[in-house]
């Protein structure tokens, strides 16, 4: 019996180690985040089941920082995402609206050409700037989720 004691103790420790690793993996299965898009709406889903934990509204970003607060790197990226997403959408929408106005104005025969050129310039400028902000936001979103999921595995 006394000889068996260290063997049993060692086996117990090995089982504990395996359980710790399995728990780490199940942490990823249950908690790792991903981004999906449904009907054009951005959604953040959690785990294998794909529970929706945040979704973007019209001109409102999903509250990403609250989700990834456990990871410092993820939180930093989440703040960039929340900073750039909303202005990016507004400015891009303004660009689309101005482009519509420019196309409409081009059909008016006696309109001052300066107005037409200004409308086109404004629309392309707004589309380019808004697109750039959105690109920055989506890049930060991707990085935030990557960091969060990475830190789940630690």
């Amino acid at each position, binding site marked *: 019996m006394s000889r068996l004691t260290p063997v049993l103790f060692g086996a117990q420790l090995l089982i504990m180690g395996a359980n710790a690793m399995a728990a780490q993996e199940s942490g990823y299965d249950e908690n790792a985040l991903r981004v999906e898009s449904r009907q054009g709406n951005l959604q953040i889903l959690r785990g294998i089941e794909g529970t929706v934990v945040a979704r973007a509204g019209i001109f409102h970003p999903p509250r990403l920082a609250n989700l990834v607060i456990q990871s410092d790197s993820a939180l930093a990226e989440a703040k960039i995402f929340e900073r750039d997403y909303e202005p990016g959408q507004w400015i891009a929408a303004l660009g689309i609206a101005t482009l519509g106005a420019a*196309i409409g104005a081009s059909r008016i025969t006696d309109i001052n050409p300066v107005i037409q050129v200004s409308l086109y310039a404004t629309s392309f400028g707004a589309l380019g700037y808004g697109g750039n902000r959105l690109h920055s936001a989506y890049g930060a979103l991707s990085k935030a*989720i990557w960091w969060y999921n*990475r830190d789940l595995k630690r």
Partner: protein
Amino acid sequence: MKSGLIRALIVGASCTVTLVSTTAAQRIDSTRYDGQALRYESYWGSARIIRGADGPLVGTAGWFRSFDVEKLVASSAPARAEARVYKSNSFRASVVGTIGATAAVVGVALSANNSNNASTPILIIGGLGAVAWGAQHLHIAFSALSRSLWWYNRDLARPQLAPLPTPVPVPARETEQGKRNKDSE
């Protein structure tokens, strides 16, 4: 007395070895994730697949690109299944979206040239409809790509972390979320 000391030493050694091996396995896992885990960023209808937080660009998929996501994530069966969903939807979105955009532009050009006839509204409305359909499929494709990379990153650490394999619901073709997306079309 002597045997008790030896026993205590054996127990202590086994404890140390277990803790060190667990820590080492976690470190290997973390390093593996850092070096190999994938993510994507959408870029004007395409998906740039990047390794690591600031790592190298692995490839750009979508919008008539031939980059093979399925091959990239081949080590994970569920990731492969989602990559196939991505590929089919991305192709449809590219074809239909491009045809729709072309039709809409032609319609607008005809209308702007004051050559209005019955075909111009059909071209514009039909073209915009096709663009919307293509955009919807692009969203489905990106969602499938996201799931594919999620599964790939999950399965990265499995060789180290799974001494006793646990049963995992491996989708035959796609996850429930993917099916729901398809049903909503």
